[in-house]
């Protein structure tokens, strides 16, 4: 028989928005279940280098928040799990099925020692380093993962049994199977975040074909202490780059690829990365090709001016095509928007400031109709007065699941969601 559990609130997604909403609700005495589809909570923020405009270390802000979430007596977290068949039975009464996928490692026994990794013979791309290096088939996802326990990538496992033999805690368990749990909750928060634009969809940028064309997320990883390489280096040949270009609006504000809206964060994260690169590579030239710089938030314009003062070049230009020339260098053909002429410039590394898009498949988790906005984000039914309300009463949205936004706005949005939910739940108490 299927096991059943009861909570006050189901939070779908354990990024910064899901964590913030959960802590706020748990602190008020509500029992919260976070269902996270990844192996760790933390969302995108846990993988970032520093944050604009303060340049605070991203991991140093995320890690305490995430461990506060994980240790809270009122919060239960199911990682590597998914929710389906969410059905509103009546007011304050939702039923859903949570599927917990097997890690093939007993979470309660694994100490994260990584001895199993040493023994595993399989090497595949490390998705947490955005494919810049490899990882083993049994792996602790990343050093600050929460929970910091191993998992087995069963599709890539060679079934040699070496990990099971080596594990000093007898944590490996190939007998695990997926488990379905029926949950009953009074309210739901959608905090499923965003997905990154896939630059393969714009072949003229050469991503995938030219190894020295990378995404901004790959650059974020190169800028953290747990980086894939020993320094900021070109993936093609390990050379230290000295003429780096940023291509803004890669996959945003572009009707032709189906995303006409601004991603809100790419200008500022590019300005941030440019400043960090000037620290990491003091002799490098950095040029940002932009359509408009959107520095709308508190301290953002000063942050942009600071980058200019540090020597970052800003060119108002639209990139037509990127081609590889000698030694892995790249030729950018662009329209200089101010002068109205087509120009060419050589760089030795190109970073695509990829946009953010709505996650797919969120509304199909619900049996009732959960409406989306024209850009496939969760529709806010009362955007000005109650920004967290969706088209199902009792279901709320937090953070980038409702549209592109930065971390401070995601946290504010999660705060609004938790306040609205607390009000909704108190109607019943």
């Amino acid at each position, binding site marked *: 028989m299927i096991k059943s559990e009861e909570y006050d609130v189901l939070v779908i997604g354990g990024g910064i928005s899901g964590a913030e909403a959960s802590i706020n609700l748990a602190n008020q005495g509500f029992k919260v279940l976070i269902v996270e589809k990844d192996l760790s909570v933390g969302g995108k923020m846990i993988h970032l280098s520093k944050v604009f405009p303060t340049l605070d270390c991203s991991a140093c802000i995320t890690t305490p928040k995430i461990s506060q979430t994980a240790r809270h007596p009122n919060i239960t977290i199911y990682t590597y799990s998914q929710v389906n068949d969410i059905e509103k039975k009546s007011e304050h009464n939702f039923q859903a099925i949570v599927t917990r996928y097997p890690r093939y490692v007993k979470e309660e026994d694994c100490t994260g020692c990584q001895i199993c990794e040493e023994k595993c013979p399989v090497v595949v791309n490390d998705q947490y380093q955005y494919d810049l290096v490899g990882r083993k088939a049994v792996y602790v996802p990343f050093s600050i993962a929460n929970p910091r326990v191993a998992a087995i990538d069963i599709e890539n496992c060679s079934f040699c049994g070496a990990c099971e033999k080596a594990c000093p805690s007898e944590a490996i368990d190939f007998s695990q199977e997926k488990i379905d749990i029926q949950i009953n909750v009074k309210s739901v928060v959608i905090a499923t975040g965003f997905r990154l634009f896939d630059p393969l969809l714009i072949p003229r940028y050469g991503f995938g074909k030219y190894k020295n064309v990378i995404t901004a997320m790959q650059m974020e990883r190169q800028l953290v202490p747990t980086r894939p390489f*020993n320094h900021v280096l070109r993936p093609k*040949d390990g*050379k230290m780059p000295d003429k780096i270009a940023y291509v803004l609006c890669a996959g945003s504000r572009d009707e032709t690829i189906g995303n006409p809206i601004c991603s809100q964060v790419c200008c500022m994260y590019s300005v941030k990365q440019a400043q960090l690169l000037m620290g990491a590579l003091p002799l490098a030239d950095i040029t940002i090709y932009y359509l408009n710089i959107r520095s709308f938030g508190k301290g953002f314009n000063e942050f942009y001016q600071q980058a200019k003062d540090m020597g970052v070049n800003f060119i108002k230009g639209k990139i037509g095509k990127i081609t590889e020339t000698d030694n892995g260098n790249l030729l950018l053909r662009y329209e200089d928007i101010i002068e109205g002429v087509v120009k060419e410039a050589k760089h030795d590394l190109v970073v695509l400031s990829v946009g953010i898009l709505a996650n797919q498949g969120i509304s199909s988790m619900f049996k009732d109709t959960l409406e989306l906005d024209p850009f496939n984000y969760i529709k806010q039914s009362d955007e000005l007065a109650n920004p967290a309300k969706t088209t199902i009463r009792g279901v709320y949205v937090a953070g980038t699941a409702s549209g592109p936004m930065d971390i401070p706005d995601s946290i504010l949005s999660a705060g609004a969601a938790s306040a609205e939910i607390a009000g909704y739940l108190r109607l019943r108490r």
Partner: protein
Amino acid sequence: MGKTIDIIKQKRKVSESVKQNIKDFNAMKKKILATMEIEHKSIPQIAEELQLPLDVVTYHLMTLQKFGFIEVSELDDMDEYYFYNLKK
């Protein structure tokens, strides 16, 4: 506790691509580590010696560095490429 590997072996077969992947990585590991036996090497030097594409050498060398087989030595005179050593 008994070994649970036998349980999964009854349910799943190892794919051919996984087998090939293990062979390929081991062959690459052996070749790359062998180039550094006498002295430290840069990525272009290894690629030249092994007649392998630069990006293939970079990916494997950085992965071997992550797994603790290799360590960074020094930068070349042009401040362009690092040299890498076998980890003692």
